[in-house]
């Protein structure tokens, strides 16, 4: 009994003290529409380049091979080699040098592998997430994210997008409800014009969509041929059925 009371008091004190930290996630804006087209090889190539430059320090694509990437993205041996910071053999997997134990020390948890993240979260989520960072001094990284509240990841693109503050409005009659996102206010302008920045994030998203399902284009091309065959097969099966059933009297 004594312990319960003590624990409750302690919990209440902690909860009060940490009130600004434990504030509920704000109501995020709707997801933006990602410009995904895995047939756009140029976009995939740029996405791959930017992924290797900005994401691969922490995140891996450990289920994808360099050789596969080179073949699918039409990168020659020299172009491919320029992307390979660590590995020397094209049959090796796309991995980085960050030890998992260290990563947990840096961020609190290891950055996830991103090979199939597009299948898990969806392209629109990735596209919006990467552009939804805002300044939040209560976070260890100095930034928070609207679609992934209290994410451990720092904003990798802050110098391109600029640093922004988020304006929220309280819902409810007396301003006691959840916080709803209203708009961003730029604090430090970014180095890239917004349209170019959107394109860059779009390319990275497109690249992640490709990596999650590298055989998608092949499947779509093969699907047409399979369907043409099946439609013909079904047509002949129908004609055969009609012929055989001619003598069944109603």
């Amino acid at each position, binding site marked *: 009994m004594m312990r319960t009371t003590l624990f409750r008091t302690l919990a209440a004190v902690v909860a009060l003290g940490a009130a600004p930290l434990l504030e509920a996630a704000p109501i995020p804006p709707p997801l933006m529409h990602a410009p995904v087209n895995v047939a756009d090889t140029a976009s995939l190539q740029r996405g791959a380049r930017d992924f290797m430059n900005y994401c691969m320090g922490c995140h891996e694509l450990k289920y994808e091979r360099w050789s596969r990437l080179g073949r699918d993205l039409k990168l020659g041996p020299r172009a491919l080699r320029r992307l390979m910071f660590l590995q020397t053999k094209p049959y090796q997997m796309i991995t980085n040098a960050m030890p998992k134990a260290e990563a947990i020390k840096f961020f609190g948890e290891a950055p996830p592998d991103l090979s199939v993240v597009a299948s898990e979260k969806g392209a629109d989520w990735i596209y919006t997430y990467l552009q939804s960072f805002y300044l939040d001094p209560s976070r260890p990284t100095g930034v928070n994210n609207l679609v992934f509240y209290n994410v451990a990841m720092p904003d990798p693109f802050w110098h391109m997008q600029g640093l922004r503050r988020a304006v929220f409005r309280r819902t409810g009659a007396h301003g006691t409800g959840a916080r709803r996102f209203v708009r961003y206010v730029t604090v430090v302008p970014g180095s890239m014009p917004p349209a170019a920045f959107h394109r860059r994030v779009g390319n990275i998203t497109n690249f992640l969509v490709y990596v999650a*399902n590298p055989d998608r284009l092949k499947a779509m091309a093969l699907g047409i041929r*399979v*369907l043409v065959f*099946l439609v013909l097969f079904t047509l002949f099966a129908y004609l055969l*059925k009609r012929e055989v059933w001619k003598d069944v009297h109603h």
Partner: protein
Amino acid sequence: MNERSLSSEAAPTGGGLLGWINARFPLTQLWRSQVSEYYAPKNFNFWYFFGSLALLVLVNQIVTGIFLAMSYQPNVHEAFASVQYIMRDVHWGWLIRYMHTTGASLFFVVVYLHMFRGLMYGSYKKPRELLWILGMLVYVCLMAEAFMGYLLPWGQMSYWGAEVITSLFGAIPWVGSSLVIWIRGDFGVTQATLDRFFALHVIAIPLLLLILVLMHLIALHQVGSNNPDGVEIHDHLDPKTGKPVDGIPFHPYYTVKDLFGVGVFLIIAAIIVFYAPSGGGLFIDPSNYQPANFMQTPPDIHPLWFFTPYYAILRSFPNKQFGVASLALSVLILFGLPWIDCHPVRSIRYRSWAYKAAVVLFAFTFITLGFIGEAPATLFWQRMGSGVALVYFLFFVVAWTYARRPTPRRLLLTLAAVLAVVGFLIWRFYLPSIAGLIWRTSLVPIVYALLFLLVPVFVPGLLRDRPVPDRVRMR
């Protein structure tokens, strides 16, 4: 030549290779008795495609499964990666895996339609009770097969799904907690669980499935197929040939018709496999693209779509024992269908309007439960689930009553019993804080019971069956 055969109606052995075989194995005889001279009613409609389609999907699952097992690693550290290895490095691996995942969902589509056909045309009624029970055993095996297969990719939903479903056995009194450990082979879902689920998924249950499917077919060929009119074709034999007048040989009539059905079905399957393999999250859950993590419970655990109706029933009562018992009953009650609905008229075509409505509403109830099982486990959906789950069970009460001379007195007595049970459940799970919600969701079964048990008392015409024709009719 010394001719020996298994039966007196042996096929002529003939010469050549076929003759050589026939002298040693009754090939021609089997072909004739089971296929080319197996007489099926001539009035099969759309609903009769799904038996042969289920067989097709079974073969697809076994063949693709064999190739998947060649590259899959049943190991908690490698299972997830081996699936990605299949998707990227194995030749045609992506196609084989998508055929297997799509096949699993389509198996249930086809089997549910096949079962609904049986319900509509009374295909479980005498003398087909055992045929129905064997089919139900196939269905239960299929559920076990799908559940165990879902653990193998070792994704988040695989892991937590297995965790939740195996823990259900803990609700069994006295032996529950030991049973859970016995099933898992460990205190949690671990390597031991993955090992045994893999063995059961690739060997034990497929073997059982094949044997049961064979028995289902043997039973079917013993009693003959039912048809949309529910009229026995063997009651009208041609005096000259001794064959059913309204029957046609399975081959070539139904082999070519089923071939057309196979074509249409494969077109649908190919569209899914090549263009929408995850089916918008219905066939492959997005959470399963994250490796299993026992430290992190996903915000919303739910099974794939084909189990969500049962999942809704499981969640509908705020009491584990009650939920698990309802879940078990919801499957077991289907075994009893031949004795619950023993009405002499087989086909829904000649049953009363009230029964027609009940059957259509039963299908609708099952689909609604599926949506509720897919919804987040909020208080509203849980209580709504209990209302709709009661309607699921009430169908069987209604079918039982309608099958046994439903006099006004019997209808009213049944209604009183149903209202007493609903009242008991309201009292048992009453919470003053959500009184409004409880009363509103309880209206669902109460209105259903009034519609099907009280209204016919005043409108007896609703319970009038139509005369069954002597012979089958073609439409």
